[in-house]
C-alpha cells in the first residue's frame, strides 16, 4: 500500500516498513526464520506480518503455542547452532515470561563461553499505551533489557528507521530486543526502494534547534516534534534527538546536543522511575555538567499501572503540551 509524496518519495507505514525489513532478510538469508503466536495466517494481532507466510511458508513463519518462555529458549538454541531466529512476542508486557531465557541465557552465553558461542537472535515485541488495553497490555518495559549487558535494544520511531534498524538487528550477531510502539503501525513516512541498513548505536537528530534538547524515544519522538512546533511559535528553538537504540547508546550525540542548547528534557514512554529517562538524564547531567543552565528533566510514563479508563490512561503519557510546559519552565519563559 505504498504511496508517494509530492517529491516523489515512496511513503509507507511503520508496519509495512517492519514487514519489508523482515521479508528482505528472510529472502537474503535462509537461516532467518520467525516464530511466534498467530504470526502466520493471522499475520500477528496487529497484522504486521500479513502475507509473509505465503511467500516463505510455515517452516519459516512458524505459529507457536502460547509459550513465550519456550519460544524464546528455542530461539536461543537455534541461534547458537547456525540459525537467525526472530522471536515474536505479541505484547511487550509478556517479556516478563521471557526474562530468564533472555537475561540468564541469551545475554550471557557469548561471555560465559569465553566468546565461543554467539546468539544472533531478535526478540521483536511492542510497547506503548493509550490503546485502552489496560495494565497488562500497555507497558513499555524496554528499560529492563537495556539494563542487561549482552543485550542490545532498539526503539525505532519512523518507518525509515524501523526498516533499517530491523535489518541491522537481524544481521547483528548478538541478541537484540526490538520494541515497536503498537500505536505507530499506521504512521507513515518516507522509505526508499533501495536497500539500506542503519547501524545500531547511532542517534538521529530529528530536528535541529538551539535553545533546548528534547531526547525522545519511539513514539515520544512525535510528541517531542509536536512540542517543538509549539515552542517554535513562542520563539524557543528545540532540538529533537532520537537515540534509536537504548543500547548501544549514542552518548556523544546526546551530550553534544545538550552542550549546545544547555538544557534538556528526556522523554520516554516507560515508567519514569528507574527507567530509560533516568539513564539518559544522568548521562547528560554528567557529560554536559559544565554547560547546563538548568537541571535535566525527565518525562516518562506516570508511575502507575496503566489504567483502562480513557480519561485516566491519557494522563499517564507525556503529551506535546506537557513537554512544552516543561520546556517553557526550563527556558524561563512563563
Amino acid at each position, binding site marked *: 500500500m505504498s504511496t508517494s509524496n509530492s517529491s516523489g518519495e515512496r511513503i509507507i507505514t511503520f508496519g509495512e516498513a517492519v514487514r519489508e525489513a523482515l521479508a528482505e532478510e528472510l529472502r537474503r538469508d535462509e537461516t532467518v526464520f520467525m516464530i511466534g*503466536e*498467530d504470526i502466520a*495466517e*493471522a499475520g500477528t*494481532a496487529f497484522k504486521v506480518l500479513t502475507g509473509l507466510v505465503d511467500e516463505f511458508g510455515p517452516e519459516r513463519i512458524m*505459529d*507457536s*503455542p*502460547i*509459550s513465550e*518462555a*519456550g519460544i524464546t529458549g528455542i530461539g536461543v538454541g537455534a541461534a547458537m547452532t547456525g540459525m537467525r531466529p526472530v522471536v515474536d512476542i505479541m505484547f511487550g*508486557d*509478556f517479556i516478563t*515470561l521471557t526474562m530468564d531465557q533472555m537475561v540468564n541465557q541469551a545475554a550471557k552465553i557469548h561471555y560465559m563461553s569465553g566468546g565461543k558461542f554467539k546468539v544472533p537472535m531478535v526478540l521483536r515485541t511492542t510497547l506503548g499505551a493509550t*490503546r*485502552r*488495553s*489496560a*495494565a*497488562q*497490555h500497555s507497558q513499555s518495559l524496554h528499560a529492563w533489557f537495556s539494563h542487561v549487558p549482552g543485550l542490545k535494544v532498539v526503539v525505532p520511531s519512523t518507518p525509515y528507521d524501523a526498516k533499517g534498524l530491523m535489518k541491522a538487528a537481524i544481521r547483528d550477531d548478538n541478541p537484540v530486543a526490538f520494541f515497536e510502539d503498537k500505536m505507530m503501525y499506521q504512521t507513515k513516512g518516507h522509505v526508499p526502494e533501495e536497500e539500506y541498513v542503519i547501524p545500531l548505536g547511532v542517534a538521529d537528530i530529528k530536528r535541529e534547534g538551539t535553545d533546548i534538547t528534547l531526547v525522545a524515544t519511539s513514539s515520544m519522538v512525535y510528541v517531542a516534534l509536536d512540542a517543538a512546533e509549539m515552542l517554535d511559535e513562542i520563539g524557543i528553538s528545540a532540538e529533537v534527538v532520537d537515540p534509536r537504540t537504548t543500547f548501544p547508546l549514542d552518548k556523544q550525540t546526546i551530550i553534544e546536543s545538550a552542550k549546545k542548547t544547555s538544557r534538556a528534557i528526556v522523554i520516554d514512554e516507560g515508567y519514569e522511575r528507574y527507567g530509560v529517562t533516568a539513564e539518559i538524564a544522568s548521562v547528560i547531567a554528567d557529560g554536559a555538567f559544565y554547560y547546563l543552565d538548568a537541571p535535566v528533566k525527565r518525562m516518562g510514563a*506516570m*508511575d*502507575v*499501572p496503566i*489504567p*483502562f*479508563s*480513557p*480519561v*485516566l490512561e491519557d*494522563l*499517564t503519557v507525556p503529551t506535546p503540551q506537557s513537554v512544552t510546559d516543561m520546556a517553557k519552565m526550563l527556558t524561563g519563559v512563563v
Partner: protein
Amino acid sequence: MAKKKQPPAPDISSVDVEQWLHMYEQMVKIRVFEEHVNDLYRSAKMPGLAHLYIGEEAIAVGVCEALNRDDYITSTHRGHGHCLAKGAEVDRMFAELLGKADGYCRGKGGSMHIADPDSGNLGANAIVGGSAGIATGAAMSIKKRNTGQVAVCFFGEGALGQGLLYEVMNMAELWKLPVIYVCENNLYNEYTHYSESTAGDFMARAQAFGINCVEVDGQDIREVYSVAQQVIERARRGDGPTFMLCHTYRFHGHHVGDVNRSYYRSKEEEDDWKTNRDPLKTLSEWLIGQKMAERQLFDTIEADARSEIEKAVEYALNAPYPDVSEVEKHVYVE
C-alpha cells in the same frame, strides 16, 4: 479428541425445575450481556476490545451454580461470563467496560480485569494462564485458614502452553489443595486451532500429576453442573484438585473486532455449533421435552433479561468517569 467415558453418568435427578430455570436465566443474562458488548463496540461506545463468551455459557453457569458465594474463582480475558455467573451485577459490569467510576474496578481494570471480592471473584486476567498461580494460592490459603471454601481456575485451552500451569498443578496435587482447573477448550487459541499448538492429550497433562480428571460436554449444562458439583465436593472434603476439561466453542470472533474469520475456521463449523450445540437451546429444549417448562417461559426470561440489561447499558453510558485524581490512587495500599 474423542470424548472419554470418564465421569459416571451424572445424577441430576435431585435438581428441581427452579434451579434449572435459574441456570437458564444466568446463561441468557450472559448471552444478552455479550450481545450488548458487541453492539457497544460496533457503535464505538466502548473503549478497547472485548472477548465474548457467547456459546460457552453453560460452563461458567454450570460450575458457578455448584459454588457458594464465598468460594473463589479466577477468570480470563474472556471473563464476562465467569464474573456474571459468580454473581456480578450487569450495571457495574457495563460501567467497568466503559471505564466509569462506578465500575467494579472504578474503571481502572476494564473488560479483562474485572474483580469483585463480594462475589469471590479474584479477577479476570489478561495474561493467558496468568491466574493459575493465584487460584492455586487461594486454595492454599483456604487450606491454611481451614474455611472449607474451594477455588476455581477458569482458562482456555491455550493456557496449556504456559509452563506456570504445570508448576502449580504439581503443587496442588502434592498438597491436596481445593482447586478446580476448568479448561474451556473452544478449539482455538486466538486464530490457531488447538491441534496446531497442542501435542498429545489434554487430560493426560493433568493426569500426569496424579490429578483427578474429568471431561464434560461444555454445551450441556446438566453435565457441567453435576460433574462440577461432584468434584467441588471432593475438593471440599480435602481430597484435592480436579482438572475439568470442557468441550465448547465460541460463537463469535476471538474478540469483537475479529469479524472475518474464514481464514481460520469455516462458516459451516460455526453454523453447526450454533445450530446444534447451543447451550441455551439444549437446556430449554430438554426442559420442554421433559414437560418441566413451556416454550413461552423462555421468551419471557429472555425478555426480562433484555430489559434489565438495556437499563444497565443506559445507566453505564450515563455514569460519570472517574475523577482525574484517581489516576494516582490505589497504586499502593496506604
